[in-house]
């Protein structure tokens, strides 16, 4: 069996990020484990409230602290533990080694600066280039992203660009310092279907041409099927199933995963009615006892209400947390 250990570029172990609010402790991330391998696209999949965004923010410690805090766990990158390292070390990594692209392109760009200025600022922050070299680099990046007349586009303000263009500018900015890892938080969620296709294409290119290691966060399993290599399905702040994308789609083990697959309004399906998962996603302040999914699970057993399920490794590097497999 090929050892994949040397290939691992980021390893998240038992990560717990809690938010201490006046209304109670929100256990946004409650024991998440996964590794990102070099050159792969790892998808974090789940619906709203499952903790996937907080997981991504935790990697670079970008959440508000207080009230948030990493209470346990390690995030191993290079020789550092990002959960524990100093702010100075973290700042050097942010943007340069690990870059993040956010969902709302509108709010991530500064409305009073041209996009050229913003990209150049990003470049000069981390690389020892003078202004004109940084500018050239920015123009190259923009045209790589498929932005027409990139040189002229440098002097545009964000409001002059469409949603899809803004998203592309953001991706260009994140790539400006050649990061090792790119984290993309739902980049295709707020855009139209045809723009979604363009953006997915960009990510595909990133993988093939630059061998970029990506963590791609989404709630859309169809997107996962398109560009993911491996997927981590999250629910209630925990990872419930991890496997390669083809395994997850053809052989889902956790009832939530199979539920998600079934209720997708897939264009290739012919059935008249959609299957759905009854109930709603749990309130993070009032997590159910035992397995967080049990109130909605069609296969719930008595033990599911009492005990949290252990992690079980089945074949082919397929991990699942469910009592059905003990």
């Amino acid at each position: 069996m090929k050892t994949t250990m040397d290939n691992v570029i980021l390893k998240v172990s038992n990560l717990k990020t809690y938010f201490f609010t006046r209304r109670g402790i929100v256990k946004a991330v409650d024991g998440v484990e996964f590794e990102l391998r070099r050159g792969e696209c790892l998808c974090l999949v789940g619906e709203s409230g499952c903790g996937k965004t907080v997981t991504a923010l935790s990697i670079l410690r970008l959440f508000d602290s207080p009230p948030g805090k990493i209470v346990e766990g390690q995030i191993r990158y290079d020789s550092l533990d990002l959960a524990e390292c100093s702010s100075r070390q973290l700042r050097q990594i942010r943007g340069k080694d690990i870059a993040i692209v956010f969902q709302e392109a509108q709010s991530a760009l500064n409305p009073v600066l041209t996009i050229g200025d913003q990209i150049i600022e990003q470049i000069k922050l981390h690389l020892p280039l003078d202004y004109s070299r940084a500018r050239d680099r920015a123009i190259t990046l923009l045209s790589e992203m498929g932005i027409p007349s990139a040189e002229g586009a440098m002097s545009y303000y964000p409001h002059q660009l469409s949603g899809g263009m803004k998203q592309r500018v953001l991706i260009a900015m994140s790539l400006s310092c050649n990061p090792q890892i790119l984290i993309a938080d739902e980049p295709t969620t707020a855009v139209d279907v045809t723009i979604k296709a363009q953006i997915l294409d960009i990510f595909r290119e990133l993988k093939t041409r630059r061998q970029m290691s990506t963590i791609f966060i989404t709630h859309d399993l169809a997107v996962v099927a398109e560009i993911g290599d491996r997927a981590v399905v999250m629910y209630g702040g925990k990872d419930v199933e991890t496997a390669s994308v083809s395994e997850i789609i053809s052989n889902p083990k956790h009832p939530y995963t199979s539920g998600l697959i079934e209720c997708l309004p897939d264009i290739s399906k012919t059935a008249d009615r959609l299957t759905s998962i009854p109930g709603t996603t749990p309130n993070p302040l009032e997590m159910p006892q035992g397995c967080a999914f049990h109130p909605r699970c069609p296969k719930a057993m008595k033990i599911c209400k009492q005990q949290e399920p252990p992690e079980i490794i089945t074949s082919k590097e397929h991990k699942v947390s469910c009592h059905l497999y003990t």
Partner: protein
Amino acid sequence: MKHMPNHKLLKIRNLKKYYPVTAGLFSRHIGDIKAVDGVTFDISEREIIGLVGESGCGKSTLGKTIPRLEEPTSGEILYKGADVTNLDKKGLRELRREIQIIFQDPDASLDPRMTVGDSICEPLIIHNIGDEKKRMERVAELMEQVGLEIRQANLYPHEFSGGQKQRIGIARALAMNPKLIIADEPVSALDVSIQAQILNLMIDIQERLGLAYLFIAHDLSVIKHMAHKVAIMYLGKIVELANKKEIFENPLHPYTEALLSAVPSFKSKDKDRILLRGDVPSPLNPPPGCHFHPRCHRILPICNQQEPELAEVSEGHFVACHLYV
């Protein structure tokens, strides 16, 4: 979901909604945003029409113009034979009993200051239906229909989840026994597993109450389960209109083809995707000739000169494209 042909409920003829754009100190009229630019189609009783298009294509504006929440610039809207554009205040109120809207953002569409029971009851009060007791009974009935518990009627919107809020919106829309419901992207803001619940609910209600829907969406995959007919909109115009089977199996307009291929699907991992170049142009300054021509992968020389008309190419299948004229 067998569809029986029924009476025509709504006929829209060459409907236009322009927003004038002014500039300068004296508000000079320099152009129009042609949000809806000559739309023609019909909705029959019990029919579900899916209206699909991307942001900026005018589908939401069309949805709001039909019940005159936005005033049409020109064109005809005939509801049960009567011209909606000419209705007086009283007639408009009557119309509002029969045509209802479900909105996209469940958060914003409920008054945060009213209990949900009051919100559902409001149409009954506005139209003076029944007395207090009868109204309470009706609210209870409606809440049950959408899968909510009656005891929740005293709660406020912020105490519900997104999916539940959308159910409340549906209950409110059903209060007056409408004939036509315009659903403006009702599931776009919801999680995937909840989307399925709400879509199923809407299908159930449609079958049970015999409603017609104008279902506005930006995603063809959602339409597939609901619609009898599908209309594709681009920059204010309908570019293709056909029944569901035809649209999905035999799309004619290049934009429809691109939309279909753009939807990520499990089976499409390695398929050839039609990638449209560029972005949707601004409705203030649409390209000459066919509005779609700069992004079209099957363009002909005539396309940048003449606008194609929406024409029936085979039975019930309309398309506006020079390829088929």
